[in-house]
């Protein structure tokens, strides 16, 4: 007869196996990042010989050098600037449109909304080619403004969709009360609808912020001037110029990755929500 002990032992064994599997994958996820940080603390002389994860001597001055001489301080501020501008742009523009699509009546509303949604479904793999031509014509290439407008456009459809779905589920009573009190439509949008939409706005903000911070293609097409470049583009330029300066490159990579990892840790809930709604959509 198989005893209770047998079943308990079997269950424990299975659990150990499952954990071993999960932990080994988790380690595989983390070790390249640990190696990145570890390499960023070595010197040009030691990095090719010292293969230990905990380096002999921590050279934190690499971060100072990367920030100052490598220019990553400048690029970091550029990335912050682009992220903040694009995300605030998207929040305003998308929420205005989403509110109208959900609440207001005007001819052509459904067609317009359909076009916005269709844009998410149709893959345009080389859209950067005509965009390059267009920005040249508008004299917006190699300008921060051109990049910001392009990136607002990238996040627009998805954000409108998220916000409209949310507004659709919101009860109208509060807005009606505000209307009776004499608020304008814009007043209702700003003072009533927007505060209520905070949970979904958080998703929109975090999702788009990650997107802008990590964006590379448009930054490559648009910027020639180094002092305008965001981090991702600057990393590739740096790598092209200082091919073997691995400690500084790794310091630059850490500077780029760290804010994302921190934001992710703090805002996990919103990121996961944004991704699952994005996935459901496609």
């Amino acid at each position: 007869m198989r005893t209770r002990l047998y079943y308990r032992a079997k269950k424990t064994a299975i659990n150990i196996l499952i954990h071993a599997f999960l932990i080994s994958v988790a380690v595989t996820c983390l070790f390249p990042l640990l190696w990145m940080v570890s390499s960023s603390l070595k010197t040009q002389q030691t990095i090719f010989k010292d293969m230990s994860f905990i380096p002999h001597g921590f050279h934190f001055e690499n971060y100072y050098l990367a920030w100052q001489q490598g220019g990553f301080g400048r690029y970091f501020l550029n990335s912050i600037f682009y992220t903040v501008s694009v995300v605030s742009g998207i929040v305003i523009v998308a929420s205005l449109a989403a509110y109208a699509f959900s609440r207001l009546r005007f001819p052509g509303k459904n067609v317009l909304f359909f076009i916005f949604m269709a844009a998410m479904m149709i893959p345009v793999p080389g859209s950067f080619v005509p965009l390059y031509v267009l920005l040249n014509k508008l004299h917006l290439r190699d300008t921060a403004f051109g990049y910001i407008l392009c990136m607002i456009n990238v996040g627009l459809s998805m954000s409108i969709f998220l916000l409209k779905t949310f507004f659709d589920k919101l009860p109208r009573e509060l807005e009606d009360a505000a209307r009776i009190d004499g608020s304008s439509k814009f007043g209702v949008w700003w003072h009533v609808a927007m505060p209520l939409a905070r949970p979904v706005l958080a998703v929109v903000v975090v999702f788009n912020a990650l997107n802008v911070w990590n964006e590379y293609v448009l930054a490559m097409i648009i910027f020639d001037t180094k002092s305008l470049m965001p981090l991702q583009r600057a990393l590739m330029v740096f790598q092209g110029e200082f091919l073997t300066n691995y400690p500084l490159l790794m310091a630059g990579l850490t500077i780029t990755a760290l804010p994302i990892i921190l934001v992710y840790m703090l805002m996990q809930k919103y990121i996961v929500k944004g991704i699952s709604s994005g996935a459901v959509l496609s």
Partner: protein
Amino acid sequence: MRIKPAFENYLFVLPAAAIFAVFYIIPFIWVFQLGLYSWDGILPTKAFVGLSNFKEIILQDKIWWGAMLNAGYITLIALTFQNALAFLLAWACDREIRMKNFYRLIFFIPPVLSEIVVGLVWQWILDGNYGLLNNWLGQLGLSNLVRNWLSDPNTALTTVAIVHCWKGFGWGFLIFLAGLQTIPREFYEAARVDGANAWVCFRKVTMPLMVPVVVLVAILTILGTMQGFVLIIAMTDGGPAYHTQVPVLRILAAMRGSSRFGYACAQSITFGAILMTISFIQYRFSRYARQA
């Protein structure tokens, strides 16, 4: 009186519509227009060449179709290896298990990182002379495996594909886990009562209910992987020779390298049409699978 409110309502959508029209609709139309021209991107005059760009792509551009095959190869590895791993991990996490949230937190770190960061870090690990991987192989006595992973034509593409899987499996994991968690626990209990073992439970309960999720992840994987190229820019830039070229890199090369804007647009259209066809076939197939 009736015109005014509609006008005010238009003001709400005006900024979005304007940005969208200029930065999405116009480029979208231009792709189709430019695809019919031969143009270097600078001269004010474009030469109308009809469909000859498409003819050249389809009949003569071997590098293009090679790039398509490469992307297909990476996609195949992502579809099988990456998604199987994602499913297994999700299945392992979909139970009463300790540290579930910790695992979920860690598995999704690679997907939130940028392709540039991931590509450059892995390039350093895989470096032929000073890379960590070769160092480990040497220490394990496997020196005969040591090679220049990203510049050896035999290994470059597979190496790129595996890094792609490393970066991407967290997506699939998250979607699979969400799918698994919607399956009511009672289904499993009922199957258990009827004497089903774990494998039968998996085959008769989990699999049928997960078909739509699997199809969704498959579609996302194909569309995402076929169009991927930034990771490759950061690791090999298409080399050695053309061994890790993918379609979007070819579009970029036609535009930047050879200043053939019309040709680049024709490649875009060709590739977009292929992607649409794939996702359409998959969609039909999934409807068929769900009915059967």
